[in-house]
């Protein structure tokens, strides 16, 4: 195919009316910026489930009663769980909800077991040295980056977190930090030693929940079932679900919001089609005699159709590369995250999303160019040559 020779005939049209090209480019760039940003927002939120949510990891919490963060599981359950075959690891947590630096902001302190936590959870961004330092010291803590930043804490600092309720408080020394971000399990919490937290809160023997890891995803449902059967007649019956189901439900609460964001994203593209269609139509109308000339020189109808369509697609792709590219760059550079009081979730994008947006600009251009291209190619030559505008 010898199409490259026609490239200048398409691309050079941009210079014909630089102001219009610039305005169209800006309009397109803005739309694709918005589209990719919204897509990234969706990606971030659903990504919480898809990337962090595992079918192998199970959460065990009390079946009935108070919200899970106030749950009371007897610590004795842990030993019984560990003896169930098919479980690769189980690690207990005790929650302590403290006050944050600002009014209404919380700081979650997790009492955890240093010996078992890394068998079940990945501590992203925690170095071997940091973890060793934590393990050796009774009052040490590893704190997520997001929480550190929210409170202006530093490694090495001594921190006291006041409880939300009955005047309790926890004091600890920060010895390491976990990564921020959605794929980090501990970005917004402080991890301290379980026995230490139980002691200072006077909650010896109590756990809030237990995280388990099955040897394989196939075993997970059966394991969940046998755990819940085991404790069915105990004082605190349990409910064990996979991390994925748990997070799916969280995202389920956002289902309408996610749907709305998706719709708005595509509405933006629809608006873009109209904008580009208008530009191409205006440009073609002004070039009617040139189209007559090209037809006279022997350019066929189909050729004209493709030339105009390519022009529309070219515009759209250039706009998309700029707009989507800058949105992608902005998220990749981690310039944007949710407000801290909405979880401080860091917005993410990925190359696939960028590619998808840019690929979508092709149908956008085709749709936009269809009417003007059809019109241009069907115009009788003599009429086109007579045209004055």
């Amino acid at each position: 195919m010898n199409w490259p020779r026609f490239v200048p005939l398409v691309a050079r049209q941009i210079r014909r009316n630089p102001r219009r090209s610039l305005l169209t480019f800006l309009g397109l760039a803005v739309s694709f910026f918005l589209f990719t940003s919204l897509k990234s927002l969706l990606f971030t939120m659903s990504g919480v489930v898809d990337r962090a949510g595992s079918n192998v990891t199970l959460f065990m919490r009390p079946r009935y009663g108070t919200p899970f963060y106030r749950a009371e599981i007897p610590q004795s359950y842990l030993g019984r769980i560990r003896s169930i075959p098919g479980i690769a690891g189980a690690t207990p947590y005790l929650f302590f909800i403290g006050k944050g630096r600002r009014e209404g902001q919380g700081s979650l302190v997790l009492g955890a077991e240093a010996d078992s936590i890394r068998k079940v959870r990945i501590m992203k961004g925690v170095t071997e040295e940091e973890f060793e330092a934590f393990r050796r010291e009774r009052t040490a803590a590893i704190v997520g980056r997001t929480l550190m930043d929210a409170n202006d804490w530093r490694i090495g600092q001594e921190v006291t977190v006041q409880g939300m309720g009955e005047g309790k408080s926890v004091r600890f020394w920060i010895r390491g930090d976990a990564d921020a971000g959605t794929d980090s399990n501990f970005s917004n919490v402080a991890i301290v030693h379980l026995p230490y937290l139980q002691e200072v809160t006077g909650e010896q023997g109590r756990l809030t929940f237990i995280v388990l890891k099955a040897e394989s995803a196939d075993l997970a449902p059966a394991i969940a079932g046998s755990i819940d059967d085991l404790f069915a007649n105990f004082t605190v019956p349990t409910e064990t679900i996979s991390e994925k189901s748990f997070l799916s439900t969280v995202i389920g609460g956002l289902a309408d919001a996610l749907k709305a964001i998706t719709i708005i994203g595509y509405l933006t593209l629809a608006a873009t089609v109209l904008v580009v269609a208008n530009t191409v139509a205006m440009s073609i109308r002004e070039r009617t005699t040139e189209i007559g000339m090209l037809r006279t020189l022997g350019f066929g109808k189909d050729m004209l159709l493709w030339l105009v369509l390519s022009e529309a697609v070219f515009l759209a792709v250039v706009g998309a590369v700029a707009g989507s590219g800058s949105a992608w760059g902005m998220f990749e550079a981690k310039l944007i995250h949710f407000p801290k009081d909405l979880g401080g979730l860091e917005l993410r994008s990925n190359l696939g999303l960028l590619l998808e947006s840019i690929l979508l600009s092709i149908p956008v251009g085709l749709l936009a160019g269809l009417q003007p291209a059809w019109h241009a190619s069907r115009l009788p030559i003599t009429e086109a040559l007579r045209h004055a505008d």
Partner: protein
Amino acid sequence: MPAELKSLPLVEIRDLQKSYFRGGEEVPVLREIDLSIAGGEFVALMGPSGSGKTTLLNLIAGIDRPTAGELKIAGRSIQDLSEKELDSWRNRSIGFIFQFYNLVPVFTAVENVELPLLLSGLSAPERRERAEAALRIVGLGDRMHHKPGELSGGQQQRVAIARALVGNPTLILADEPTGDLDSKSAEEILSLMESLNQDFGKTFIMVTHDPRAAARARRLVHLEKGRLVEGGA
């Protein structure tokens, strides 16, 4: 042009009719046109406005279709060609010069001249070489990379002539080629066409209402109210 073709008429028109339909009513523009033009001729088509001279030119160029009659060019009946055949026929056989030059403003002179060659199988260097040669012939060897906006009207029309020449067509058609030029530039353009006709043996059919332009032609064909009035002046 091969010698054996020279004796045969290059353009043979038999009983050509062209009508437009306006509001369901037939408006005849050309009637009973019989015309024969030999290779190497320089014909001026003259007539008052509305006489149908541009329509006749358009029919010969294959950018308009006759209502009836026969139109044979270089032995080929072009009224029977399909639209696609007609497109490529035009590309290979016809060079067209417009009154308002119709150059692409965002292309340089040489790129404008290359335009018809884009449809040929020629490689990029071959196209460029031919376009440059055509520009040299029209005397614009030193203006190849100027854009139309940087050229005078006369120079722009020369570029257009080079574009008409570049594909080595059988027939060059010109629609009021001097209509938009001052008299000095018009003279230069006419001289150029004359020399292309004499030195390169190019066949020209030119629509004009300018007597000075007509004077350069070797044959005058008059049209009045859609009918041919051969000879004339």
